[in-house]
């Protein structure tokens, strides 16, 4: 009866939302095989594994040590591998975050096992079957896992956390002793300098248009972009008016931006602009004119005064990010 090992992720001693997502993913596979979900939490000495039972963990192993407060690739991968080898696991699940995308391949290489990266759906039916996007999301692979164990990196936001009431057991674990002196060492996390992410490459884009009325009001767009971690874009009209640099313009040349999420703020949706952003995965429009063409291509729209809506949106997003 093989168990599932789930690797949690924390920052500054607080578990991230994705940790609850991977627990839910673990639950799916464990329930199908009749095994248990074991969670491994690695972080500083103040890290706690309490309350994770409610999210689906049968057992939690907490490795709290100053040496692994930050993500240390070599210590983390050795610790995860030790844990896998100490039990009988059919799958190791982590989140396809910056950490998971680095840690997953290392663990798979150490265990000499397959890696299913960036998984958006997983199920267990005559073995583990996963789906994962390819070709910039233009196609989807369905893959069957043919050997055990397997490392699975689940895309953030792909699996909803469980809201249960089960209590889990919390144990204490240790940093893998063999490699206490790691060679590559993460020294610090610093805030990124505001460097201009190219709008054509950004995962999220917040674009502003004429509805902002004055160039100074673009600070609202910048604030929302900062909150959500986005690149700033601009409509043709405001670039031509000289409010914004040409590099931020979306949609003039027939070039497109294809972010996961696109906010069109105060942009009516001239076809010039639409041509440039309609391949975005999710489009949000905020405009005071309910008949604006932008609402025809938007997935979600709010009709109203952007000067009230945008600051509120930025605040709410910041609140979520802080948790």
């Amino acid at each position, binding site marked *: 009866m093989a168990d599932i090992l789930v690797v949690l992720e924390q920052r500054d001693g607080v578990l991230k939302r994705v940790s609850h997502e991977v627990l839910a993913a673990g639950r799916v596979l464990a329930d199908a095989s009749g095994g248990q979900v074991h969670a491994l939490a690695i972080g500083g000495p103040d890290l706690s594994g309490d309350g994770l039972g409610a999210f689906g963990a049968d057992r939690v192993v907490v490795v709290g040590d100053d040496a692994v407060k*930050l*993500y240390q*690739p070599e210590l983390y991968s050795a610790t995860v591998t030790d844990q896998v080898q100490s039990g009988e696991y059919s799958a190791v699940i982590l989140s396809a*975050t910056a*950490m998971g*995308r*680095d840690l997953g*391949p290392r663990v*798979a290489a150490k265990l000499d*096992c*397959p*890696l*299913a990266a960036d998984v958006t759906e997983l199920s267990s039916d005559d073995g583990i079957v996963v789906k*994962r996007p*390819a*070709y*910039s999301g*233009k*196609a*989807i*692979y*369905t*893959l069957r*896992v*043919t050997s055990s164990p*397997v490392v699975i990196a689940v895309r953030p*936001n*792909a699996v*909803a956390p469980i809201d249960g009431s089960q209590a889990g057991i919390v144990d204490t674990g240790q940093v893998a002793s063999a490699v206490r002196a790691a*060679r*590559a060492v*993460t*020294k*610090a*996390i*610093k*805030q*990124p300098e505001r460097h201009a992410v*190219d709008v054509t490459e950004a995962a999220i884009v917040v674009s502003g248009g004429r509805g902002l009325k004055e160039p100074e009001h673009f600070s609202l767009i910048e604030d929302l972009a900062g909150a959500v971690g986005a690149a700033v874009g601009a409509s043709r009209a405001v670039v031509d008016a000289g409010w914004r640099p040409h590099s931020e313009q979306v949609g003039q040349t027939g070039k497109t931006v294809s972010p996961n*999420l696109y906010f069109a703020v105060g942009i009516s949706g001239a076809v010039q602009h639409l041509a440039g952003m309609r391949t975005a*995965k*999710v*489009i*949000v429009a905020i405009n005071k004119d309910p008949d604006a063409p932008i*609402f*025809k*291509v*938007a*997935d*979600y*729209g*709010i*009709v109203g*005064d952007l000067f*009230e*809506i945008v600051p509120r*949106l930025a605040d*709410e*997003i910041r609140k979520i*990010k802080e948790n």
Partner: protein
Amino acid sequence: MKIAVCVKRTPDTETRIKIASDGKSIDEAGVKFVLNPYDEYAVEEALKLKEAAGSGEVVVVSVGAASAQETIRNALAMGADRGVLLKTDAVSLDPLPTAKLLAGELKSGEYDLIFFGKLAIDDYSHAVGAMVAELLGMPAVSSVSDLTVDGSVGTAEREIEGGVEVVEFPLPAAVTAEKGLNEPRYPALRGIMMAKKKPLDVKDVTLPEGGLELVALTLPPQRQEGRIVGEGPDAVPALIDALRNEAKVL
């Protein structure tokens, strides 16, 4: 300084994807193939480091079909010194077999640095660089957007959610390149001519067995009709809820 760069031939991002009749691959008719864009950053960084060092060699290595020679030539045209193609028509969606082939080729090369793109834009696995480093027992930093190398020590900045990790590492090491690391050069006409004469070693290899079986390749579901979630600032929570739980993009 001796540097290896691992590259992959991938369809252009602009490519319109059509599923082939086997239901497991893309229809390659009319598809333009390019040097994976993240690998261009890797090649550029290797060239810059070699130029800064004043001497050395940049070796480009790829796993793929015979057509990948063209991709290697692109990197040679940018200025790399020689190429190695580990030739196989087999494709693995499990990244480990590919990593094993590359590690086998690179292990005796005494490279100071091995560069990769952070991911290939076709399969998006984001894995081979870290796996090769692991197989070679080498320190590695992935998704690097800034790199300095001072003698035998490197400092890299790695993009993470809402911040940047600063990582120090000793050489030899592996680094995977993120956009922003540099601005790749255009190949010069002379560079392209010289690239045709640079050595390109083609070695027949067998891709080791992987642990993932391809069941199907399908197109994503059609986009749904949009909707107005509400009016004014009071609609913000409904919007956020929709973005998080329905669209799953926040």
